[in-house]
């Protein structure tokens, strides 16, 4: 379970402060003043966090065996009509558990059985600012 719902009203004021940084972004690169490149808005940071969460397999993270999603495990399932529904439920439950401040607006899953990949596109917003949306797209190769 997420430590705390750390996003409250102060997150909005932090977004407006040009000097305040939120956290590290992916891919990890060098930023200003010798620090890692970091985000300056909650939405930008949430994009990185969501990507990190969905691409982590359960059991992969040290000392946090429940952290992550089981998307990669589902990719080894037989290709059947219910696969997209399973992926959708898995993503929604994972996000609800670990990123409770995220609202999923759109979730498009494109499972291509003949191309051996699954494309996942997630449009989302954060509870402090539901009108601003952002999206991530993941392309995962299926087993084989």
């Amino acid at each position, binding site marked *: 379970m997420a430590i705390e719902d750390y996003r409250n009203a102060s997150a909005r004021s932090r977004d407006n402060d040009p000097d305040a940084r939120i956290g*590290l972004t992916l891919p990890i690169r060098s930023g200003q003043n010798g620090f890692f490149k970091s985000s300056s808005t909650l939405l930008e940071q949430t994009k990185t966090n969501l990507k990190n969460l969905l691409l982590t397999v359960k059991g992969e993270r040290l000392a946090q065996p429940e952290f992550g999603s089981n998307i990669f495990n589902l990719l080894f399932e037989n290709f059947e009509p219910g696969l997209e529904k399973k992926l959708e439920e898995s993503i929604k439950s994972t996000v609800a558990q*670990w990123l409770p401040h995220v609202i999923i607006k759109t979730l498009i899953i494109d499972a291509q059985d003949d191309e051996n990949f699954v494309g996942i596109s997630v449009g989302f917003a954060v509870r402090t600012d539901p009108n601003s949306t952002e999206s991530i797209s993941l392309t995962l190769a299926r087993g084989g």
Partner: protein
Amino acid sequence: MASTKLMPKPVNYLNKNFNNFKADLIEYAKTYFPQSYADFNEASPGMMFIEMASYVGDVLSFYIDEQFRESLLAYAEERKTV
């Protein structure tokens, strides 16, 4: 002019497991880097690094405890230490 004395940082030698290291590192980041880092959700890459450091601390603490125990004859368990 008043002399400035450096206050010693409180060091707790008993908080040596994963959760305690993690809590201490989070507290440290909140205290010394409030403008540079504010994302303490497990999903963030920064927390990933904090947890990795906590894990290393947990493992090293285990070996420190084990070595100390082996230095006491009454509690030693390995043949080579008795």
